[in-house]
């Protein structure tokens, strides 16, 4: 077979000038590939970003074809939600009403309106399967002996009773009764046959169960008849790729052969330095290094690849480039010009993880150790098609004895494919059978239906396909949380502002604290405000506008700390202070020595001699093995203790101000100018609306997360710092804001920061709930007292926050005390065996942009991104709002949609279970030994998530929001195509409007009720599930303080 390939290849293939169009096709297809880059810089994005130009529902229909993945949860899941009340009947009805508008009232024969038919199809599970299975179900299970369990007893009874009377009346004696003549002979025959099989002689003594079985069997026969009337055979389009055709024809997967080899090659090509030996000739590119490696003599090829060496040698000799090779392969595979586009796309999609990573490394990773040169994806495709050819020839020959032209293989194989075109008759009959029971139709009703009605019913059922049903159920699922949220926010905001107006002018708060907009900070802020009512909190993207490349005192490289869309120009470095320079130098040396040694051991343990040595003393490894697994927290404390010996000195400073005019990484260029600092500070403060009433202490908090054994660690970090930890940003910002020169400039611009106000940087670890403060040695003595108070409040908040988080962890008892909860989360962060160090953004569903007062004291269950924005300080066009939303909407939508898709199909869109993950090439994970690179989120990350689209609630006038939408194509795309929900909350009268079909429609609240609780813990305690909204009652601070103490006492 190898020779056939060769001969064919020797044909002079027309070197068409179409390579440019080929490149274009490849690039088009590349956009469909997963766009996740190296896993150490994990950025959440919409998994179906490529389809954002379409409406959400249409894109999802389209995606089924393109990605072969699930677009919604399984139908049964929604039915469970229906059963437990998460979806209400009225939500279903409302969504159906909305979809059908006037068409819902159309009558389907005698079966009622379309609306009711669809509602029945949604409420009752309709099973379907292969014909054989359905026949088996009828023959062997109770399906045709007893009514479905969801048929109410009285309906069941009525149908049986009715049938009994009917049969006794019309058919009992079988002689040609006058009325029997009016039935079709077929029906008479069927009934006669059934009567005989059930024992007609003793019909009077038939038990209830016999009648039930009789009725159902009769119904089944009638449904089969009805289904045969309305035949509409479906003929699927034959698949495009040779692999798919062969798979159908002979049940042998060519991709198994190709992928094993291709994955290994992709992995060594993209390797960022894990393997000891790099791929020879890697610099020549994917295609050439493949040719060099597989053209080498003296190697044994597996059977299907016999002849590859000769083929590769020919390519090398004739200097066939990758694009020409693709042309050649397409020609040899017999791919017509009209199929090309789709063929290339499906071929690339076959190994989408690796192909996507190649594309990312080619276009988007110039910072990586070994990025891929331009054109690598095309080279990948060229290699893949060569291998595809070999595999197809081999499989066709082995399994079909096919030795003909590869070009005709698809036609030949398709002929072999089982030709039984399924008419769908049994499926339809079974659907009708189930529907008849749920609609309460008796056999007499069924036999009366004219064939017109049967075909109409068939069309109806077809039109309301499984996908469509799942969409409807999903919309109902979303509608519920949407309504609850809008009701709660509006009600709470109204009350809050009424109270504020009554209270008069506000006193200056004790301290103010900035957090990231991250949903995980929602509970922290809420608890802090509960613990210390005299404080204020703000939410802002936690890079605080300090877009920089940052290098810490013990970091090897500078890394960008800002959203991915921004390319930082500035560099900032952390340096030891003069006093500790010597200590720093010594410790860096010790670190380097230790690092080199452990690197040597790490490498050596995999080699021959080094390995033997390390293995013989390997018993020493049992100490960390036992320690770290059985006593993770103690082991971590020990490690930290020893770590202090080599850690950089505690006291460091930031090199934040540059002396040269232009920013850059060189000496003198590192840092910002005073003017730039002023701009950064001004913008952050104006965006969040903190322009007056400055507290004496303003704490800026960045965040990140630390965990072990977690390849996805960077996904848990701050999204606004492109998967980095945002502490340095908070520190840099505070230093800028404290600078008197900056304050002077700001004062000129009308933003007066009082002298007494001090900014302090902090870092919140969302995994172990630790809060660290930066540069406390600089804290003015005058602020000692207020800081002590703030710190006390924060410490208490940490405990409470950990406590609230623990309710989600099944391994933490619901009766856990706050103190133990904090220890529990600390242990999770240090535990090697912990697959869920924290739940990251799971359960996120809402983004609120507006003044904190609107939602302060509202229990939002860690599901809400909170961005501060004061509409009263903004202009009519919403200049400030536009620049906030330019980041907030795409980022939060990206997070929510990535969670959505990973959640509805964890295997297809997500990366499956974390348990068998295997880090490869330092770039990503495979699921086990050798698979496609898995992108998206793991099962462990999404297990408590509710897949819903993000609801953005913006405190502004609809007109302003419309302007913002007009001004930003990204926002417009997401909102108009319904990838997110958008609502406005009026700054004055607190009414809400929902954005639908391009305009803001007034939203009618369903309820004004909002449960009131005394503290957050009262509301969430004892529950693991998602919780509804509640108002944490605003008690006088003194009462609350003592109450909190009492509470803690009760736990202790």
């Amino acid at each position, binding site marked *: 077979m190898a020779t056939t390939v060769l001969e064919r290849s020797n044909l002079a293939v027309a070197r068409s000038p179409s390579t440019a169009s080929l490149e274009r096709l490849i690039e088009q297809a590349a956009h469909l590939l997963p766009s996740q880059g190296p*896993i150490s810089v994990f950025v959440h994005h919409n998994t179906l970003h490529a389809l954002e130009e379409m409406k959400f529902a249409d894109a999802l229909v389209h995606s089924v074809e393109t990605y072969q993945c699930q677009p919604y949860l399984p139908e049964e899941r929604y039915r469970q939600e229906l059963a437990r009340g998460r979806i209400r009947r009225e939500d279903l009805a409302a969504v159906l009403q909305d979809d059908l508008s006037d068409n819902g009232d159309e009558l389907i024969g005698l079966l009622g309106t379309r609306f009711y038919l669809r509602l029945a199809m949604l409420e009752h599970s309709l099973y379907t399967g292969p014909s054989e299975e359905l026949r088996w179900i009828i023959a062997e299970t109770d399906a045709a002996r007893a009514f479905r369990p969801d048929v109410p007893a009285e309906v069941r009874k009525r149908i049986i009773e009715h049938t009994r009377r009917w049969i006794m009346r019309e058919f009992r004696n079988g002689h040609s009764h006058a009325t029997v003549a009016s039935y079709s002979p077929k029906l008479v025959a069927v009934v006669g046959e059934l009567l005989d099989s059930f024992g007609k002689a003793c019909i009077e003594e038939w038990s209830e169960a016999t009648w039930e079985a009789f009725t159902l069997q009769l119904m089944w026969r009638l449904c089969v008849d009805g289904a045969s009337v309305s035949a509409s055979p479906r003929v699927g389009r034959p698949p495009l790729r040779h692999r798919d055709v062969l798979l159908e024809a002979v049940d042998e997967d060519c991709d198994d052969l190709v992928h094993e080899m291709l994955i290994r090659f992709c992995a060594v090509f993209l390797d960022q330095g894990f393997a000891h030996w*790099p791929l020879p000739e890697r610099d020549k590119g994917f295609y050439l290094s493949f040719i060099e490696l597989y053209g080498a003599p003296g190697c044994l090829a597996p059977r299907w690849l016999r002849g590859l060496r000769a083929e590769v040698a020919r390519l090398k000799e004739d200097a066939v480039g990758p694009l020409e090779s693709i042309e050649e392969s397409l020609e040899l595979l017999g791919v017509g010009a009209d199929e090309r586009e789709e063929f290339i796309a499906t071929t690339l999609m076959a190994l989408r993880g690796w192909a996507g990573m190649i594309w990312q490394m080619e276009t988007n990773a110039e910072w990586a150790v070994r990025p891929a040169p331009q054109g690598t994806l095309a080279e990948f495709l060229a290699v893949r098609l060569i291998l595809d050819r070999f595999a197809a020839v081999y499989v066709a020959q082995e399994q079909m004895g096919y030795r003909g032209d590869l070009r005709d293989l698809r036609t030949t194989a398709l002929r072999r494919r089982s030709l039984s075109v399924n008419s769908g008759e049994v499926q339809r009959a079974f659907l009708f059978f189930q529907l008849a029971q749920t609609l309460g139709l008796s056999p007499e009703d069924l036999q009366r239906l004219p064939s017109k009605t049967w075909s109409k019913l068939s069309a109806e059922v077809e039109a309301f396909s499984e996908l469509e049903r799942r969409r409807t159920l999903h919309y109902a699922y979303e509608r519920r949380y949407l309504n609850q949220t809008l009701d709660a926010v509006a009600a709470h905001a109204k009350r809050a502002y009424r109270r504020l107006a009554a209270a008069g002018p506000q006193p200056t708060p004790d301290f103010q604290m900035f957090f990231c907009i991250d949903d995980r900070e929602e509970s922290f802020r809420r608890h802090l405000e509960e613990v210390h009512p005299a404080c204020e909190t703000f939410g802002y993207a936690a890079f605080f506008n300090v877009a920089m490349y940052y290098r810490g005192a013990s*970091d090897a490289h500078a890394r960008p700390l800002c959203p991915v869309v921004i390319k930082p120009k500035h560099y900032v470095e952390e340096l030891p202070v003069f006093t500790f320079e010597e200590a720093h130098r010594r410790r860096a040396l010790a670190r380097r020595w230790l*690092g080199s040694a452990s690197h040597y051991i790490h490498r050596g343990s995999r080699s021959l001699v080094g390995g033997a040595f*390390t293995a013989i003393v390997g*018993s020493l490894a049992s100490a960390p093995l036992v320690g770290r*697994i059985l006593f993770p927290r103690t082991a971590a404390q020990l490690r930290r203790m020893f770590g202090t010996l080599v850690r950089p000195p505690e006291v460091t400073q930031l090199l934040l101000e540059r002396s040269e005019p232009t920013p850059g990484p060189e000496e003198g260029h590192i840092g910002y100018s005073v003017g730039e600092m002023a701009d950064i500070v001004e913008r952050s403060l104006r965006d969040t609306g903190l322009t007056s009433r400055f507290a004496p202490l303003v704490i800026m908090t960045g965040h990140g997360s630390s965990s072990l054994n977690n390849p996805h660690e960077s996904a848990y970090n701050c999204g606004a710092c492109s998967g980095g930890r945002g502490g340095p940003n908070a520190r840099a910002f505070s230093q800028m804001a404290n600078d008197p020169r900056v304050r002077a400039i700001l004062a000129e611009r009308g933003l007066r920061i009082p002298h007494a106000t001090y900014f302090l940087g902090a870092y919140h670890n969302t995994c172990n709930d630790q809060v660290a403060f930066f540069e406390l040695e600089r804290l003015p003595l005058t602020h000692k007292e207020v800081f002590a108070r703030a710190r006390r409040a924060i410490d208490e908040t940490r405990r409470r926050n950990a406590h609230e988080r623990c309710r989600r962890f099944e391994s933490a008892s619901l009766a856990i005390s706050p103190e133990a909860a904090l220890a529990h989360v600390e242990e999770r962060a240090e535990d090697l065996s912990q697959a869920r160090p924290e739940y990251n953004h799971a359960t996120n569903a809402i983004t609120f942009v507006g003044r904190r007062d609107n939602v302060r004291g509202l229990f939002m269950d860690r599901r809400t991104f909170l961005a501060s924005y004061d509409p009263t300080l903004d202009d009519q066009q919403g200049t400030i709002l536009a620049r906030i939303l330019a980041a907030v909407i795409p980022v939060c939508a990206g997070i929510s949609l990535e969670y959505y898709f990973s959640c509805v199909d964890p295997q297809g869109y997500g990366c499956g279970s974390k*348990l068998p993950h295997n880090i490869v090439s330092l770039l990503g994970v495979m699921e086990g030994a050798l698979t496609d690179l898995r992108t998206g989120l793991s099962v462990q990350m999404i297990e408590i998530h509710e897949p819903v689209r993000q609801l953005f609630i913006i405190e502004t006038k609809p007109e302003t929001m419309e302007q913002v939408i007009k001004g930003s194509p990204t926002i417009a795309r997401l909102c108009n195509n319904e990838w997110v929900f958008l609502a406005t909350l009026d700054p004055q009268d607190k009414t809400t409007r929902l954005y639908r079909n391009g305009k803001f429609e007034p939203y009618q609240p369903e309820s004004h009720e909002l449960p009131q609780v005394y503290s957050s813990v009262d509301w969430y305690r004892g529950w693991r599930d998602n919780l509804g909204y509640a108002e944490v009652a605003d008690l006088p601070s003194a009462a609350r303080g003592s109450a909190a103490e009492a509470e803690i006492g009760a736990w202790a």
Partner: protein
Amino acid sequence: MTSGHLFNVFGPLVVAAPALLLVLLGTAALLGRPFPEKTISRLTQAAVILGLLGAVAVLALMLAADRRLVTLTMGDWIVLPGQHFHFTFKFMFDRLSVPFVILSFALCGVTSAFASKYLHREPGFGRFFVLFAVFLLGMVVTSLAGTIETLFAGWELVGLSSALLVGFFHERSGPVRNGLRVWTVYRVADAAFLIATVALHHLTSGGDFVRLTGSGPWPEGQALLTSNQALFIGLLLLVAAAGKSALVPFSGWLPRAMEGPTPSSAIFYGALSVHLGAFLLLRVSPLLEQSLLLCIAVVALGLVSAWFGAVTARVQSDVKSAIAFASLTQVGIIVAEIGCGLRYIALVHMIGHACLRTLQLLRAPTLLLDYHTLENAIGGRLPRQPTMWEQVVPESMRRRLYRFALERGFFDAMLTDYFVRPFTRVFEWCDAMERRWTDFLAGEQSRESDSLDLAGRVAEELR
């Protein structure tokens, strides 16, 4: 109580604890009423601790009483006096089995503690621990086996649980296929083992190691076999060991076995299971002394495997395969040490290696963080030390070697093409002949199954 009584208390405890665990977990699973997660992990921990205590107590007693061999007999199961045949379950505690069984308990204990958190909420949690119990029992039985048939029983339990855990994620095709592959290689190894068992029974009319290895306790003792007999049985056992320990040419399955959850990969292919082949050779090491040829074969196989593992590990780009081949390297060296008669060194090497690899595999997912930490400590990209190979071996040779390593020594292709393919071809031929014959006899097409359409019908309606 005399020390003899104490032995009779603690000795059986070592075997009974894992057996009881398997019975409990297995019965609950069979009845369709699996225990909750917490109960399962508590039971497992209790069994491991009990077993470990028993083993340590036996060790202490042996040291105190200065006995080097303690045997426990579970009775003859089959005795055919006419044929001088008996089939005995017998356990023995000596300098080889006690350290190995303690190691097994220690590593299984740590790994089960790891797994009970790592697999939290996993639908297959119960299944994992049932298989884990099978494995633990298999390891204990193998280590303590006093007769070759006892060892075989343990060996099979380990093999079964191993293959099933490779296929743990059975909803995907890759793990199942690779599990089957592991299972197939194990079958070949087991076949060799079984022939060796039968031959041994034939030659010594019993499977006792004491009989096989002479009077003295391990590692002393003289095999009561002639040189040729030793060579024959030794070679068969070497094939068995090679299959189990993934030595050349069976190495292909080792990286493929990294399909299960990380803890099972760690305990099987990093730590215990992969050393079983070496353990078997250690157990029958007096046999090696009888035949120089056998020793040479063992050393050669060990060295080739070690070299192969070392070369292949260098090109692996994923962490688990790299560790798998690194593991193979050391197992190869251990086998070579056994061949050279360095039994204590081999034992120490084995124990140290098992601990090291378990730790390495369990923390494999933290690789990125480790690299990051190392880079920070060193203050730059990790240096790539140019190895001796790169300085000595010429460019073209290196490329060839690279290809050799990347394709994992072509062993898979070789086994498939020159072993499996002819094998299946022969049977296909037989099948065709049979069909012709039955068709001829029936005078028509005789096989109904031929007309059944089996392919591609599953999901037709679901599209």
